[in-house]
């Protein structure tokens, strides 16, 4: 191991290339003569390492050759990502904040009519404008209570669903009943034997329960309140079948 001071001295001599200094060092440290020669070779190599020609042609300077830095691309990507995120958030917020309108002209294909005997779950978002009129039973409270919970002692005389507008060009009666129930936010059970002719609805500003009653007069069924938010449709057996026509009003 060569001491640092001696090593520094050898590098200094190698840098200077003074023959007298090299000779003096070799006489004083004969065992390090080879090490000194290695450093001289190294310095010579380093000094001759610049292999560029002395007369390097100088190209014309052009102030347009700065390559775009990666950070610019990164910032652009980040900006687009933020923009996309805000756009997505705005669309989601817009869709969520706009209330769904009341049921307006709907065309339902008879082939898509649901089974008349199933329980129909009211759509809680369909009736944001509902105004309660039966003892503080707000639409929100009604929406949070499952409609399948039926408490016979508390059966009300009528079910308020707010004034609705419902127009149908052509639909089976059972489908029309289910749509009315949905707009009124209550469930409906249609008993077997209830007629199912094709009907046309044109109700404006009416309570859904009143719609059912009016339809019942025309198509021979009776809507019976069967719980807080449940209605049972029973066909009239002791009366005439009613005038089964395509127009209800």
């Amino acid at each position, binding site marked *: 191991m060569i001491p640092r001071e001696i090593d*520094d001295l050898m*590098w200094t001599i190698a840098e200077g290339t003074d023959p007298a200094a090299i000779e003096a060092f070799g006489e004083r440290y004969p065992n390090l003569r*080879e090490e*000194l*020669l*290695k*450093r*001289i*070779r*190294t*310095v*010579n*190599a*380093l*000094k*001759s*390492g*610049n*292999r*560029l*020609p*002395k*007369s*390097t042609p*100088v*190209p014309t*300077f*052009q*102030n*347009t*050759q*700065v*390559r775009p830095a990666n950070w610019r691309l990164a910032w652009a990507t980040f900006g687009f990502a933020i923009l996309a995120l805000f756009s997505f958030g705005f669309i989601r917020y817009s869709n969520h904040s706009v209330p769904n309108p009341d049921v307006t002209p709907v065309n339902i294909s008879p082939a898509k009519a649901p089974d008349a005997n199933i329980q129909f779950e009211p759509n809680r978002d369909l009736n944001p404008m509902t105004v309660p009129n039966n003892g503080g039973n707000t639409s929100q409270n009604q929406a949070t209570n499952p409609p399948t919970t039926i408490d016979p002692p508390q059966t009300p005389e009528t079910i308020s669903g707010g004034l609705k507008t419902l127009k149908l060009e052509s639909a089976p009666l059972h489908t029309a009943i289910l749509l009315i129930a949905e707009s009124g936010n209550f469930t409906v059970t249609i008993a077997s034997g209830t007629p199912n002719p094709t009907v046309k609805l044109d109700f404006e500003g009416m309570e859904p329960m009143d719609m059912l009653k009016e339809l019942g007069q025309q198509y021979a069924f009776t809507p019976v309140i069967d719980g807080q938010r449940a209605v049972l449709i029973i066909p009239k057996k002791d009366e005439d079948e009613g005038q089964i026509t395509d127009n209800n009003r």
Partner: protein
Amino acid sequence: MSIYFEGAGSFDEDSILVERFLAGEASAFESLYSKYYGKVLSLSKGVLISEEEAADVTQEVFTLVYRNLHRFNRQSKFSTWLFRITINRSIQESRKRRFKHKHVELSEASESIAPEQAEDADPRIQSAMEKLTPQDRAILTLFYWQEQNLQEISESMEINLNAAKTRLYRARERFRIFFEKEVPHDSEGN
């Protein structure tokens, strides 16, 4: 050419060219460009090894200087500021291509060298240089190719004087080890 303003320090030729360019004289920058193009190319090549990449970096360095010369604070020599930009840009480029592992063929590099220079070229030197880090190559290039002293190197590399001395010693020692492996062992030196 050197002009001395009493109480305001000395201004060398480079400083005058800088002031003229900042005053709107475009030809002053052409003078700086012509004067330093070879040195910047040489320094960049010392770090990058590849002359082609060094030429690209050199153009970028001068473009950066052209656009940012008003930021030169004149606390150091223009050449020191220019070499600092060159080293930083070259090391940055070297890091970018590190993963590419682009090896420059010696024959390819020799094609762009003048015949008289190519005869003197020693592939063992380049081989040893390639094994060093870009930082080691930068300090060796500044010291041996640009013939800067330790004070100038410390300013160009933005390190203190002792750090520059230590780094130069270590870089030179590492080069010696690699170079000795390339050189056939004999007892004669020159």
